[in-house]
């Protein structure tokens, strides 16, 4: 089952990272007549990117999901160890052929008072399947039919065994509100007052300023301590960090490296660095499309190997990320734990300019005219176009370092910086791609290897497969792992797939950046560290479990 990754939040982030202006100490008016509501009971989160919409079927932003996951429940949720826990489904079982899943549902109430039944759950999956237009559609692509034999049971029938349980990803929406809407109507539906069954009810969204939700007193689970949760939008990270320092917010889920370091030692502020599910990479155009404008020399694996050997990923981490990351190698970031394929340092195509030169010379690329740039046997120079997103400063730094490193082994790179959308448009043009090498990144959308492994598939060319890599053997490995339920067997396939793709060297994964967050120690306690972040992650449990100090 093909999978995708949430890239667009990447773009949004990239697009808005640019203007970080210094705020220094924020001032919260000490004037007694302005009373921020009993601060201790509101959990305030600070961020710099706003959600796009409150409609779960049309949102593509991580920030929107962050809010919506507290308003809507799923059948199952991730707990603080990223293991499945009960949500609206108290238990779930697979059929013997693993093609059907039966969920036992609990009783719950919608925020408008109406009761939740299996009809709502069935409706949700049916709607997502039929409307085909949401980020959740990828989980129901092989969904054949749904059944709700009684008010507390839901059965999903698939055409293939499902290694990933879609109950972990899909928010359950109320039938009585969404029924009767056509696809076009869903697209235009703002859903400005979302009704869910979740631990919090939606209050308001003041665009450009903040979002507020308040506790659902009739929630089925253990009620959270925060009576309200509020997300406050800052235009730039510096002011946001100052907000953390002065207590305007309680937690900031995404802080850039330099600013994060500046927060160390601030009074009542704890900074954390957690492994993330993201990486930044250098992508090489390996398209077989005859209309491709990419440099054909890049289809020679020797050249790609040399590019990989030329660069020192640790240096990139040190300079671009200020040391706050891990040098990259395979497709699944280290945050994925055992799923990540670990390659020993000596086996990695990394930080060995001598090797790079040797590989190039052996393949016949030498400096024939003393210009410092190697040429092929028929005189074509190893000169390529490199593009990166101008507003992602870490990518810009990395691109410059990469360019300089390649110059040392005789490869010339011409760097052009584009805005996020132009780069996306250039790269995603699969019909006539006209680029050579880019610097970009990926975030995983779900805690499952399926996502990342699903990028370099042949059927993803024109979609997520940004380097147009196509290989039957790889596709086979991917298919195997997506239908293998047995954990050990699946693990083996996942590792093999990563190794295979690594050897192709179409991606040079530079680093797995750390998720840098900070929180106040004098307002809320009980923050659990989780791979991928305490908040703005796949689990919402930190919101539910923290207690006031």
């Amino acid at each position, binding site marked *: 089952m093909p999978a995708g990754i949430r890239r667009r939040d990447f773009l949004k982030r990239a697009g808005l990272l640019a*203007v970080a202006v210094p705020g220094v100490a924020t001032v919260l008016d000490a004037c007694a007549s302005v009373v921020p509501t009993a601060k201790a009971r509101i959990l305030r989160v600070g961020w710099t990117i706003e959600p796009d919409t409150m409609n779960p079927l049309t949102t593509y932003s991580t920030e929107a999901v962050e809010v919506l996951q507290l308003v809507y429940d799923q059948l199952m949720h991730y707990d603080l160890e990223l293991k499945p826990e009960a949500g609206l489904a108290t238990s779930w079982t697979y059929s013997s052929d693993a093609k059907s899943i039966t969920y036992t549902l609990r009783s719950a109430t919608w925020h408008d008072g109406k009761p939740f039944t299996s009809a709502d759950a069935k409706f949700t999956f049916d709607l997502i399947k039929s409307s085909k237009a949401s980020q959740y559609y990828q989980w129901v692509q092989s969904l054949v039919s749904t059944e709700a034999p009684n008010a507390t049971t839901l059965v999903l029938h698939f055409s293939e065994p499902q290694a990933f349980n879609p109950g972990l990803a899909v928010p359950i929406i109320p039938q009585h509100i969404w029924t009767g809407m056509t696809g076009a109507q869903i697209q235009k539906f703002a859903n400005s007052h979302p009704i869910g069954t979740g631990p919090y009810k939606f209050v308001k969204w003041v665009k450009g300023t903040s979002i507020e939700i308040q506790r659902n007193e009739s929630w089925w689970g253990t009620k959270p301590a925060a009576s309200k949760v509020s997300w406050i939008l800052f235009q730039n990270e*510096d002011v946001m960090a100052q907000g953390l320092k002065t207590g305007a917010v309680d937690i900031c889920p995404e802080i850039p490296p330099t600013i994060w370091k500046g927060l160390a030692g601030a009074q009542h502020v704890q900074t954390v660095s957690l492994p993330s599910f993201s990486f930044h990479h250098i992508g090489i155009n390996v398209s077989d499309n005859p209309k491709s404008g990419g440099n054909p020399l890049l289809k020679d694996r020797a050249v790609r190997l040399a590019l990989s050997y030329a660069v020192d990923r640790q240096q990139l981490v040190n300079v671009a990320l200020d*040391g706050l990351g891990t040098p990259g190698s395979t497709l699944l970031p280290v945050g994925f734990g055992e799923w990540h394929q670990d390659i020993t340092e000596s086996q990695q195509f990394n930080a060995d300019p001598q090797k790079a030169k040797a590989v190039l010379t052996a393949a016949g690329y030498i400096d024939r005219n003393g210009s410092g740039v190697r040429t092929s046997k028929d005189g074509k120079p190893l000169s390529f176009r490199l593009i990166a997103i*101008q*507003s992602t400063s870490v990518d810009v730094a990395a691109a410059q370092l990469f360019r*300089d490193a390649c110059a040392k082994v005789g490869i010339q790179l011409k760097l052009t910086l584009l*805005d996020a959308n132009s780069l996306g448009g250039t790269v995603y043009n699969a019909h006539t791609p006209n680029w050579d090498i880019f610097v970009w990144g990926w975030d995983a959308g779900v805690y499952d290897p399926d996502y990342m492994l699903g990028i370099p598939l042949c059927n993803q060319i024109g979609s997520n497969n940004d380097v147009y890599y196509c290989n039957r053997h790889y596709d086979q490995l991917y298919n195997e792992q997506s239908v293998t339920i047995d954990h050990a067997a699946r693990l083996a396939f996942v590792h093999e797939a990563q190794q295979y793709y690594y050897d192709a060297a179409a991606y040079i994964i530079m680093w797995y950046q750390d998720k840098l967050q900070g929180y106040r120690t004098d307002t809320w306690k009980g923050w659990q560290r989780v791979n991928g972040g305490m908040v703005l992650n796949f689990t919402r449990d930190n919101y539910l479990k923290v207690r006031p100090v």
Partner: protein
Amino acid sequence: MVRPVVASAHVPGPDEGPVPNVAAEPVKRGQLRAVWQYVWHDRLGRIGVIAFVLVVIFALAGPLIFPFNSAAVANTSAGVLLGPSRRNWLGTDELGRDVFREFLSAAHISLEVGLAATAISMILGAVIGIVAGYYGRWVDNMLMRLTDFFLVLPQIPLVIALAAFFGQSLGIIILVIGMTGWPTTARIVRSQTLSLRERQFITRVRSLGTSDARILRVHILPNVMPLIFANTVLVIGGAILAEATLSFLGLGDPVQVSWGTMLHSAFAAGAIGRGAWWYFIPPGLGIVVVVLAFTLTGHAIDQALNPRLRGSR
């Protein structure tokens, strides 16, 4: 984003006739010398000229004496955002490069962009203004409508649009600032031209049958030149400010670093949070000094040319 020219007490509207109060004397010999004398003796004018000269020396000689190597990045994070030291007079930036050299190199770039953009906008503005003012009637009307249109063009979307095709570069910034800067000049020049056109000696010469081209070249142009010149010096300041703003908002050329780009990088790297004042105060001060230099000089020249303004000292 183009600031109005401060010195002119009045920027003529599009439908106005010749501005009655602007002295449009025919050019006399020795006027250049007279202007210079005035500017030098005026206190602010002198400060402006001195600053102007210093800035030019800095921008030209600086990068030659202290060349900036944009590829000389640090290998570890220890060299990043360090304070001023004997080795790095203005400390290091977020990639570990020497800020002092970067500052000088950026001075060069900022001035280059300012001058190039001004050249475009002045030439366009002067040509359009003269043609509109001289030929009048429907030509004037069409050109003034064109001026209105360009007056409302915002710079940011234009830069982004062009950058989407060609990638962000200095050329685009120069082009956009030039294209959005000429309307004000055009109006001022047009007004002056109108006023000249009505003067007796022009009417006489026309009735003698002299060709338009000759009149423009011999009579109109030399008389408009001083105004254009004064205006140019002032417009440069606005162009430099515009470039700084566009670069600060992330639309500049990150490879060829200007002061605006330095400020942008400083903030993106959280230099403020780190208190790295050496990185973001100098470029800002640089901009202020340069713009002041041009403004004061231009203001003084304007007064030298318009004795009416002179009385206000």
